[in-house]
């Protein structure tokens, strides 16, 4: 299963790279989102997927069931998702402002107004 999901993330990364190479700001943004989704998934998959239950201590036990998935990557992903939201919100607003200010979403033309 892990191999299949790694192939899936590879596909998502490829899509993300391709979208980021476009000249549209919107596509660049979607590309960034693709890559952050893929990265989150990679962190979950690479250490190994569990059988399906979560790393939560069952009632009466002192530690999670044997074979539980690794909780540390999950904690890392959780914060990554929320921070990713902050970053994307910032980028979306930037896109909006840039388009209103410069009347273009072409990154090659945005470059010339830099400075």
């Amino acid at each position, binding site marked *: 299963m892990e191999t299949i999901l790694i192939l899936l993330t*590879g596909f998502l990364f490829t*899509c993300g790279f391709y979208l980021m190479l476009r000249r549209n700001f*919107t596509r660049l943004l979607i590309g960034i989102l693709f890559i952050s989704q893929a990265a989150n998934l990679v962190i979950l998959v690479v250490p190994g997927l569990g059988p399906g239950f*979560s790393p939560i201590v069952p009632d009466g036990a002192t530690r999670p069931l044997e074979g539980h*998935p690794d909780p540390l990557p999950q904690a890392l992903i959780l914060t990554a998702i929320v921070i990713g939201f902050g970053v994307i919100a*910032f980028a979306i607003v930037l896109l*909006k402002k840039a388009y209103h200010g410069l009347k273009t979403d072409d990154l090659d033309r945005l470059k010339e107004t830099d400075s």
Partner: protein
Amino acid sequence: MEWYLMGMVAIIAGAMVWPLLAKRHAVWAGWLSAIAPIGIFCWLLTQTKNVANEVLPTWTAEWVPQMGISLDFRLDGPGLLLSMLITGIGALILIYGGGYLKGSPQAAPFFAFVQLFMLAMLGVASADHLLVLFIFWELTSLASYLLIGLSHSELAARKAALRALLVTGTGGLALLAGILILGSVGGTYSLAELQTKGDLIRSSPMYLGIFVLVILGAFTKSAQIPFHFWLPDAMAAPTPVSAYLHSATMVKAGVFLLAKFYPILGGVPIWHDTLTVIGGVTMLLGGILALAQTDLKKLLAYSTMSALGTLVMLLGIGTDLAVKAAMVFLVVHALYKAPLFMIAGVVDKATGTRNVTLLQGLGKRMPLLGIAAALAAFSMSGLPPFVGFIGKELLYEAEIHAGHYSLLITCLGFAANAINVTVALKVGISPFRNRGELPDINPKARKPSLLIGPLILALAGALIGLFPWLLGEGLINAAVRDIVSQPVDSDLKLWHGFSLLLVISAVTVVVGVVLYIFRDRVRAMVGLVLQKIPKKSSDIFDWGLARLIEGAGMSTRFFQHGNLRLYLVVVLICLSSLITASLVSTGFAGMPQSGPVRFVPVGISLLMVMAGIAAIRSRSTVMAVLAMGGIGYGVALLFALFGAPDLALTQVLVETLTLVLFALVMRQLPPIQAYSSTRRRATDLGIALTAGVALTIALLAVRGATIPDAERISAEMATRSLPEANGKNVVNVILVDFRALDTMGEICVLAIAAIGVAGLLLGSGRRNVQAELAIATPLFRTAVSWMTPLLIFMSIVLLFRGHNEPGGGFIGGLVAGAGLVLRRLASADRPPDAGRQPFLYMAAGIITALVSTLPAVFLQRTFMEGVWIGSLWLPIVGKTKFGTPFLFDIGVYLVVAGVCLLILTRLIRGETLKEATHH
């Protein structure tokens, strides 16, 4: 030693306090600020006996024990001597500076920077750890930069300051490199220890490197050829600064460094040759250049350069006699050069000019100043019974007994000394002689504070000449002893009887006087010769600097071209090449171990692939955004299927919020246009595919290399979660307890991003109630009146149960944020951008999180370690333990809720405004 360091603290405190006073009462500030250095000076006097008897004051404290850096201070002979110059002359300079800069806007910064400089110099004089010494060393360069540029409205001053900083700063970097090599060869950074390991260093293959780097540092600081050009420029500084930094103390730091390093690096032919040659040339050239000057300060600056050359040359000769001559000359020079500089400043103030050809007759108008000037000038000329005479006799004695080339060295010394006499007469005598009409004197120049410094120093020069024991066999002998590493015992004498030395001295004075009499002709001749020199080292320096800046600009424009696509292409190609290279070198280990294939995740993956293709191909923004949403929800489902309920919840919430954000902005964006040609698209696809494939292979390799579960750090976390952190949900426990510091940073980043969004949306226009009412339809409002309390309630439940079941601050915060946004939208009577409210939530959250760290601090436990209070039974949630991690989670909850509220309401406000302008 404690007194010395306390004095340093007092000085740096003074650097903060006295500038405040100096704005209105500069003279008072001068007198008061002199107290601390005078105090240190008195303490130093009490220590001369100890230092002479090899009982050196030391003090040490740990600083960075992990790297073996400690604050070691140790006052040896040369250090004591230099400290006395720094504090003694420094106190007089502060008094003088107060009078000189009275009423000037430069007074306040002068007091701040000069005292900073004083602190730095005292550090240089007393630091035993080389890295600590280096820090103080650089601080002197920095203080010098600030002081030269004190009149920063003038281009020349700024340029001179920058030049001095660049030259001495570059030398400082060389010195640092030299120190680091020296430390690794010698195995210690302690000067005292290194001084006993001289043989080890001198026989090391790294010796040459260390030597070159260290003398670069010393030569730049002490203005040796070819780095001398910054010193005359530095005269752009106010006169008190020139008198203090650029004649008496800072420029001596280079000489002092050479003296300190003499036991480590000295006694080798290359040391001897380099120092003697460079020092000798600097000595002669400084003198010759001085002959061409008419400006009082420039005259003194070049003669200072000549004196520094003399000192370096003496340390190069390196006999006991030469070192002794160097130490005596160090003091002698300071005793006459500092007062002459101060006098030049007073003359400038009194008459408005520093041109020696215009100045005359000041003696009648300012008799006391004239006496001080004459005393200093006689000492500089080396006339008996002044201390300058003792210095010059020693100088000649050392030069005659220099060994190789002693005749050449003596001749060089003779020329420099003769020129010295001429300069002394020009600066100290000529302006005060009466040649007819008496000049008008600016009354501002008649102040006791301006007179006391030159008078005391000049009188000291005369007194020590008459009673050489005042300077003390102890002080000079101790300094020489610590440089040549063996006890020396010799007295300073004024009168040696009739000898060859006396004859040379007499001839020197005669030649000097002759040069003075024909001064105009000599100046014209030297000027003519100097004009013939095509390129001066300052020109070369400026040329090099300009090319460097050009080159930096070119490389910046090349690498920072501003084309995002190109940046990405470079990154992706590098990524692919790196992975390929490592695959070629290690080989692919084969497919990694993989768990059983399950049907549902495979189906979700296929759907995600389809969504991905749609996102790439679609021309419609709506379609692309929806496809992206599909990917996001797909990931959420995978999270849910593979035992990560917290992630699934968070992902669903964030994905929804992101879609809402896009939906708000989307309508205003143009449809996605095809900007690129088909060929470019094909190329990009190729690059993306290559990078994607390479990355996939790398990820497979990483998967193959994962360590077994039991050896992971998280195994420990899972085991300790319940017993030690009272939480069943290990993911949440990691977030709020085990790795709480990370989370702390993350909520701060989140808050900053949200504030950034608010900043970008600032000034989007005025509020439009009509448009807001258009959103808040009655149906919507009715629904929301139920929804919001429900959402808030849910969020609180999620927060409370988070420690034991899926939930927690992040998830709860997102839900609460959604609820708050809805309520804002529904109520037209409140401003929809929520005003300051989101900021208050965020601030409250961060403060709560910070407060939660305090108990552990007070109990002296590890920072952010959980402190538990007790447990409570709550409806729905059940029995819950309470402690600081829970408080911390509340902080997270508040920040996340505030962030959602801020971003969404600000964006919505912008959109409603848009709407209003459209209609």
